[in-house]
């Protein structure tokens, strides 16, 4: 983002260049080691951790957030951000609950959920690309607007009574302990990984994040790419809204509150540069696993959610600070 520009020259990481790739790989390695340590720690801390069904339950901690995080990763790599994702989830869920009174079936509910997500994404994208507004401010505004509409519609009420086949989307299992959400998470991880790392569109995202001016002069339609990314983020928020609503079986306006922070944390923890221009989907996947396991493991130990959030916050700062601290000490000595 432009507001975090620093006077120091930015290194331009590239998937093809040796050094950039090595830094990224070592980041993912570091993250992977942390994930393994947390896993081992969890197995030692609680005898209930290593149970197929328990582990399967644990995946619900991150699948919905991670689906949004994939699209958010692309958006952040392109140098923009969307803080309204949780607001979109709330609005999309409210729209589905509202449609319930007309006795619509599951396919219509899903269509409504996804369309509202797309519309919200289009609104964000139009404000950022057409009017040239900074995305961080626009989405702080739309975050209040979208959730605010949910509050206007619902007040202190709740929608419930979702059909059973709809609930399957959030609670169902495809095979043994493999939930539908976990399958969806894996499929989206692959899709976004391919889009980002193996297509021209993905290369454009990196170029735009590193230098939007150069991207424009190399013939990349910057605004169009950004618009698509906002649409994708909206759509994924819609997907998350469908899964979350199905899993909870009810809609309150406070649904998914503060998720935007957790989703951004997941993306940044996954090694995506908040300044744009660098990152990988693999990193986000590992970060999702780390965050999911931390919350689940601590949950088994009866640690309250808010204490877990301290851990996540410290992890976010610590993981980013550590390499910089080491570099600082090293250059200080040299």
């Amino acid at each position, binding site marked *: *983002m*432009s*507001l*975090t*520009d*620093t*006077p*120091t020259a930015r290194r331009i990481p590239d998937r093809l260049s040796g050094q950039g790739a090595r830094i990224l790989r070592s980041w993912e390695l570091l993250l992977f080691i942390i994930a393994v340590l947390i896993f081992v720690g969890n197995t030692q801390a609680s005898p209930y951790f290593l149970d197929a069904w328990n582990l399967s339950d644990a995946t619900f901690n991150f699948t919905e957030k991670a689906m949004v995080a994939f699209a958010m990763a692309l958006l952040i790599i392109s140098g923009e951000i969307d803080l309204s994702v949780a607001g979109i989830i709330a609005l999309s869920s409210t729209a589905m609950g509202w449609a319930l009174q007309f006795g619509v079936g599951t396919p219509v509910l899903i269509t409504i959920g996804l369309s509202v997500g797309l519309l919200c994404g289009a609104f964000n994208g139009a*404000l950022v690309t057409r*009017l*040239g*507004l*900074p995305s*961080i*401010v*626009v989405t*702080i*505004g*739309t*975050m*209040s*607007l*979208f*959730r*605010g*509409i949910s*509050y*206007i519609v*619902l*007040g*202190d009420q709740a929608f419930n009574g979702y059909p059973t086949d709809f609930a399957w989307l959030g609670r169902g299992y495809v095979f043994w302990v493999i939930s539908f959400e976990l399958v969806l998470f894996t499929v989206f991880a692959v899709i976004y990984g391919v889009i980002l790392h193996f297509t021209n569109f993905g290369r454009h995202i990196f170029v735009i994040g590193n230098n939007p001016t150069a991207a424009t002069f190399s013939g990349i339609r910057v605004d169009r790419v950004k618009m698509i990314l906002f649409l994708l983020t909206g759509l994924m928020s819609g997907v998350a809204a469908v899964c979350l609503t199905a899993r909870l079986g009810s809609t309150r*306006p406070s649904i998914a509150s503060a998720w935007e*922070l957790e989703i*951004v*944390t997941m993306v*940044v923890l996954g090694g995506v540069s*908040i*300044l744009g221009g660098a990152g990988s989907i693999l990193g986000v996947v590992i970060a999702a696993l780390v965050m999911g396991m931390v919350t689940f493991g601590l949950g088994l130990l009866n640690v*309250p959610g*808010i*204490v877990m*959030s*301290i851990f*996540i*916050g*410290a992890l*976010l*700062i610590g993981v*980013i*600070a550590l390499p*910089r*601290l080491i570099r*600082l000490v090293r250059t200080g000595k040299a």
Partner: protein
Amino acid sequence: MILRFLKSREAILLGAVLALLVIVESRFSGFAAPGNLAAVFNDTSILIILALGQTLVILTRCIDLSVASNLALTGMVTAMLNAAFPGIPVVVLIALAVGLGTLLGAFNGILVWKLDIPPIVVTLGTLTIYRGTVFLLSDGSWVNSHEMSAAYKAFPRAVLFSLPVLSWIALAVVAGFAVAVTRTPLGRAFYAVGGNPHAAVYTGIDVGRTRFAAFTISGALAGLCGYLWVSRYAVAYVDVAGGFELDVVAACVIGGISIAGGMGTVGGAVLGALFLGVIKNALPVAGISPFWQLAISGAAIIIAVAFNARSSRQPGHIILKSAERTA
């Protein structure tokens, strides 16, 4: 000079606030009565103070999302100390709140300055850490009104020259900022760092140190507001001022503080906060459900930022007052 003021963003915002007051007054007479306006100002005081701290941070191209958590933590510390040792004078507690807030702000600042971590990441992290620490300290329990000493609760409500002390503190902070930002080297440095960090370096301004100063001041004010908030509402719990950081950023954005740094005024931030304050107080009067407030402030942010982007000047940011006048 008057003509220039009329063309400025602040004048337009002032007009918007006044228009809002006229509309509400025309339908519900008594809203714009001096007594009620003073009450609205008093109710908005904390938002004004925090928005001014945030203004400095945003001027330097950073953002501080941890202010509300900082407020909750310092507020809880003073409340628990007061409940446990009612003998501690209020002045000491206020000094402690400011001191603790300063430390929390400095922690953000040092991470941004020395480790060069993007401010949004730092304060996103400390937002959850500070809020979680409130839970660790209080174990999730509340400090209620009856546990607080009378002096602790009385200070912000005490009336001096027909205004509560809380309002006077806000006025003092506004006055202090108005002078400091326009008339001191540090105040101008905030603009220089945000306007053009490269140029700031060549004029001998330490960009990192200036950002550190902005975060520290923002933290100190959040600490002060921690005491003010908890004593005013006479209750301290984990979720005090939850999500208030967004109101603070919203006030700045509505007030025309450019998120790209280097542009904005103290008057703008104050008017931005007052705009939100008037809406918040007018809704119940107009019989609109308070559930509308979130959507309205969201829409206000979007309209304000769209409007500001259109009216923002194209040629670079001007730091010197005299140069601005000749330009």
